[in-house]
């Protein structure tokens, strides 16, 4: 009988990349241990997407006062409301710090499936415009890969998870292997045509490309349009680890999933320059356990993986494992997002939508694609959608009495179109994650200290988001256009990435072109920590594709006895 603490592969984290690592490694025959810091999730018991407002005491109303005490940070996240807050950590048990003048919002989920249970489900391929950006303008290091290296792996991921979307033939936003797109509303289709015409075809509005099924796919049912995906999905119609990759891994008979397992450090053999395994603190008993593996995949989420590397010190790496370059923790990023505009659409008042489409529109990046903008580098995409206001408008609407009530029941507010930017952040050495040795989490592990600031390029880009959004609403014929500069702090987009970047040379970064640590060849980091730049697209599909590619590479090396 094999040693229950010895595995071929150890995967730290069961979220969007941990699930993919588990699937790819087990399907290639590796006995794989997945360690998850949080507890198990039973969809039948824990998913709450069909809970109605009248089934919870406060009906998800208000400013979340009752649970701000234990979730003062998490409760700022749109999804951490009275119904869905179970999918977010207790901030008191999971502290981190940031400079007083540089707030950082770190929204986290610790449970099997991680944030794949609550993610935004938007998936966009990168292009060479993105992979060549650092080399082109000199910010950050040159990516060691190009689109051709990852394109087959995007397809591999898309075929498994199911991505609904419309092909547009744009070089900066490559088409994928799509399921049928969700339909646009009349107002959105009208806006798409008007914007296309007004800007000479340079600004293309398409339906969001979403990891949500528009038809049955790989044994999962098509979306039933109930709306709040961030609370779970009993039919697994959107992609999550829990509903897709972990079951595939379990079906091989090679998977061991261990919840409540907080990885405190990676164990390193200096003589062999190999990671030998991990030290785990059991979150329920507090006891330490060690597990060994021939390869270790870090998929704990970007800044948790960086924190773990920084906390894994040895005589060889006193400043954190795999840090011979000195770049570990540096070049941390998030997308800056949310500024734009909203306006009122006209001509569609005799129409409404039926069902709750869990998706919006997307306007592909148009800045610095054909020509250079004078005020900033890189670019942004626009996300949003058109909808009508319902009875909620009554809270601030003039009037009372029977007619007022009837108008809220049978009439609809105007169609409004919202368009808001999601912008690329330049990689900067001083945007970094370090260790705050004076702060420890519930398991006694030193906390992360996160220092990220928006700088001049991000600020200039944000101003342009507002201007261009308003231009497009004007082109779409909107009235009552309201400009919105929101100044969300770093972290708010929940796209934290970087800190253990891929590079062409060991002196420039932590990982090589296959997400393999330069300093420890049997260590792979495939979550957002590996990113050398942020592009402006939602990043999860790139993490998934890189993970699958890294797993294939690791197993190839193992079969050649090179690992």
């Amino acid at each position, binding site marked *: 009988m094999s040693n229950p603490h010895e595995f071929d592969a150890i995967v730290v984290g069961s979220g969007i990349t941990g699930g993919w690592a588990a699937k790819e490694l087990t399907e290639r025959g590796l006995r794989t241990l997945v360690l998850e810091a949080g507890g198990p999730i039973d969809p039948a018991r824990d998913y709450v997407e069909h809970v109605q407002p009248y089934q*919870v005491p406060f009906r998800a109303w208000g400013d979340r006062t009752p649970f701000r005490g234990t979730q003062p940070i998490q409760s700022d996240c749109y999804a951490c409301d009275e119904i869905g807050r179970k999918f977010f950590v207790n901030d008191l048990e999971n502290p981190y710090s940031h400079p007083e003048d540089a707030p950082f919002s770190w929204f986290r989920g610790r449970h099997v499936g991680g944030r794949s249970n609550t993610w935004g489900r938007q998936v966009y391929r990168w292009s060479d415009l993105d992979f060549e950006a650092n080399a082109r303008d000199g910010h950050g290091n040159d990516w060691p890969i190009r689109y051709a290296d990852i394109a087959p792996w995007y397809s591999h991921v898309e075929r498994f998870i199911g991505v609904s979307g419309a092909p547009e033939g744009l070089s900066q936003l490559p088409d994928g292997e799509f399921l049928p797109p969700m339909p646009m509303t009349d107002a959105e289709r009208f806006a798409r045509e008007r914007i296309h015409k007004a800007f000479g075809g340079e600004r293309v509005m398409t339906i969001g490309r979403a990891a949500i099924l528009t038809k049955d796919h790989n044994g999962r049912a098509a979306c039933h*349009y109930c709306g709040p995906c961030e609370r779970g999905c009993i039919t697994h119609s959107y992609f999550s680890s829990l509903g897709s990759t972990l079951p595939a891994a379990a079906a091989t008979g090679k998977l061991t999933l261990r919840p409540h397992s907080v990885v405190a450090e990676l164990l390193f053999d200096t003589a062999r320059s190999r990671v030998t395994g991990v030290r785990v603190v059991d979150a329920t008993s507090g006891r330490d356990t060690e597990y060994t593996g021939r390869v270790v995949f870090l998929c704990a989420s970007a800044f948790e993986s960086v924190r773990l590397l920084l906390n894994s010190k040895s005589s060889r790496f006193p400043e954190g494992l795999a840090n011979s370059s000195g770049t570990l923790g540096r070049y941390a990023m998030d997308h800056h997002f949310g500024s734009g505009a909203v306006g009122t659409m006209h001509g569609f008042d005799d129409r409404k939508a039926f069902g709750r489409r869990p998706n919006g529109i997307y306007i592909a990046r148009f800045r610095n694609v054909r020509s250079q903008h004078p005020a900033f580098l890189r670019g942004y995409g626009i996300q949003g959608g058109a909808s009508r206001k319902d009875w909620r408008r009554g809270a601030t609407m003039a009037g*009372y009495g029977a007619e007022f009530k009837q108008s809220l029941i049978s009439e609809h507010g105007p169609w409004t179109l919202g368009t808001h930017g999601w912008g690329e952040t330049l990689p900067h050495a001083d945007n970094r994650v370090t260790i705050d040795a004076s702060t420890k989490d519930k398991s006694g592990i030193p906390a992360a200290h996160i220092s990220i600031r928006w700088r001049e390029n991000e600020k200039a880009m944000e101003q342009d988001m507002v201007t261009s959004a308003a231009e497009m609403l004007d082109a779409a014929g909107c009235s009552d256009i309201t400009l919105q500069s929101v100044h969300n702090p770093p972290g708010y987009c929940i796209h934290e990435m970087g800190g253990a970047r891929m590079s062409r040379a060991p002196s420039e970064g932590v990982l090589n072109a296959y997400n393999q640590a330069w300093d420890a060849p049997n260590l792979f980091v495939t979550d957002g920590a590996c990113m050398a730049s942020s592009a402006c697209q939602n990043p999860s599909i790139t993490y998934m594709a890189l993970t699958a590619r890294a797993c294939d590479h690791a197993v190839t090396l193992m079969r050649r006895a090179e690992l």
Partner: protein
Amino acid sequence: MQSLWQGGLATLLVPGAVAGAWRAVAATPADAPTRTLTSPQARLIALLADAILPRSDTPSATDVGVIGWIDAVATDYFSSVQRSDFLDCIGAIDEHAVSIGGGRLESLPAGVVAGVVTSLDSACRRKNLSPAERGYALLKELVVFGYFTSEPVQKNVLQVPIVPGRFDPSVPIPTPVAK
């Protein structure tokens, strides 16, 4: 399949603790004892709630338990500071009624009550609100939210489908027929 979702399975997916919390609130009828609101406060709120959303061919605010929900918010949701401010502002509404109507709200004839509500409703979109205007604005928000999220209104009035089963981006809205 759709009827299975709407009728059975969706209900089964409600966690026990959550369902229990709803029963505690839903079991509070309009005239049931309240935990934070005094009887005069509850009567004042009921008067205003049914002025904002009166009974017609659909239920009124108090018909669907809005008072119980507002009492739950006042008791278990608000911080002590928020609770105190809310109750002070509710009291200020009665003082406002005395100043412009000559008596506490529940003692006034319907026409005068309407005048008081009109004065508060027309003011509450301004800035720098008086305590009475602030109290009315928050109360209106609570009444509208509590009414339209109540089980009877969601199910029987709005007929919100829990599982629509499809997304149709363009459904014609029938033109209302004049009565």
